[in-house]
């Protein structure tokens, strides 16, 4: 019972501290919110890129377009060779007509314009869609195909994935940089907020020490103030981040439709883990900053 009363007293002091210093607490919450939102956006961008890369890698698709001068017979000979290649999982032969229909479908809004080109021999070409067993074989395979006669173009997903990997690398660098800078910023602001509260209650602290309050007892309300600031900032940041994610989800879905990539929902894209991470970050920064401030300014 005695300890419950002490906990109740400490909690009451924490609320008093927050109310006494509401503006600075609000500023700290805003900073924690902003920090986590920025870091969260970076993390989500990295995770989404990772997911796209994974999906592309799983497919390991390559499209070989023959020149219009290559006949069906020659293309089929190539198809037979490619199909038997050990690296190839599946190979699909796409006739000239199928390719043409695809193009017309793609530009369906300007179908009439393209109707006039239906008989253009440049649009009469054969393709082979290849799916490899292993994504890692992509570069060598594509290089070999490009050496063949009559190849017009090879849609190389390997190159795209490489570019995405590079982007993901820089996104990760950005995440770490932002996390470090922003964490420093949150620590500084929470530290200052708690410092102001400690200074404002200097006299009370002094008296508490003389009447036998332990350092833990005196410091706890200040630490709780810092920790609650961190938690509130973290919760708001997560709510806004999930909102932002949902808002761009449709946009991502539209882009994805053209590439057959299935976008992930916020929950699938680590929403739960991010929530836990944000809360832990809020607690940790709040705890460390307020602990440092209390230790430094509580000496009376």
């Amino acid at each position, binding site marked *: 019972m005695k300890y419950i009363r002490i906990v109740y007293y400490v909690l009451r002091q924490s609320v008093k501290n927050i109310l006494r210093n509401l503006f600075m607490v609000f500023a700290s919450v805003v900073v924690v919110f902003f920090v986590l939102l920025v870091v969260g956006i970076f993390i989500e961008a990295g995770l989404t890129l990772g997911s796209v890369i994974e999906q592309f890698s799983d497919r390991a698709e390559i499209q070989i377009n023959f020149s219009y001068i290559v006949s069906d017979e020659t293309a089929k000979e190539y198809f037979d060779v490619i199909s038997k290649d050990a690296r190839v999982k599946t190979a699909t032969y796409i006739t000239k007509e199928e390719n043409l229909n695809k193009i017309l479908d793609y530009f369906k809004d300007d179908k009439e314009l393209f109707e006039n080109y239906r008989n253009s021999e440049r649009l009469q070409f054969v393709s082979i869609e290849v799916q490899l067993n292993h994504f890692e074989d992509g570069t060598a395979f594509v290089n070999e195909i490009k050496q063949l006669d009559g190849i017009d173009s090879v849609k190389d997903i390997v190159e795209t994935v490489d570019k995405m990997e590079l982007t993901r690398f820089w996104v990760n660098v950005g995440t770490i940089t932002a996390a470090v800078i922003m964490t420093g910023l949150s620590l500084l602001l929470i530290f200052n907020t708690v410092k102001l509260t400690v200074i404002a209650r200097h006299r009370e602290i002094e008296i508490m020490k003389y009447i*036998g309050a332990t350092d833990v007892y005196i410091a706890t309300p200040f630490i709780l103030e810092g920790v609650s600031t961190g938690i509130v900032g973290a919760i708001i940041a997560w709510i806004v981040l999930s909102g932002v994610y949902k808002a761009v989800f449709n946009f991502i879905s539209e882009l994805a439709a053209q590439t057959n990539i299935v976008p992930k929902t916020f929950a699938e894209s680590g929403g739960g883990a991010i929530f836990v991470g944000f809360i832990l970050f809020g607690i940790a920064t709040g705890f460390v900053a307020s602990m440092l401030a209390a230790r430094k300014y509580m000496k009376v």
Partner: protein
Amino acid sequence: MENDYRYDYSSQEDDNKGPEIVFENVTKEYQNGVRALDNVSFRVAPGEFAFLMGHSGSGKSTLTKLLMLEERATSGDILVGSINLNSVKSSGIPYYRRLVGIVFQDFRIISSMTVFENVAFALEMLGAGRKQIETQVMAALDLVGLAKKRNEYPGHLSGGEQQRVAIARAVVNLPGLIIADEPTGNLDTENSQEIMELLQKINTELGATVLVATHEKELVSKIGHRVIELSHGVRILGNK
């Protein structure tokens, strides 16, 4: 009152009286080389009321700081009851201070709290229940004659009354030892006399050992208790 103190005066000869204070060859030298106390020895008996006198710079404040464990002796032993203050670790200081009531010259009460809250503060911190707080705070306020002003804020009280609030806070958890550092320094003659009488009353009624540091000779001679006099960090009077 629930007792969870890490220190007690269990080896006291008389449990109804406050602790004995013993200074044995105590020297305090500050880091800047100033020797505030030089080989000081004296004894205050359990439940005794004693004055600690001396001009400013004589070492009075240093001596009270040593008793409050705000400072540590450079050499020598200080005993409060069965507690050797040299052996009290930093983490044990708060528990030791719960056994000591401290009264300052500048009152040190919180202006945003009522008289009742200022006194209750010391008990809340120990996790005392509401009923216990009400009973003990009112008893302390009765003792200092401020029960009717329980809801007043310090700003509405005279200096003497503010010092009474500080004394009520010092005695509310029934400490065995009261240390008063220049408790009348900010008060007029009439209020000073009243505060001294109040400290005497606490000594008589609660059996607490009371040590009052002061430089007011006239007041001390009126009250008439034993005087331990310091001059330049050396005890010159007050053998017992």
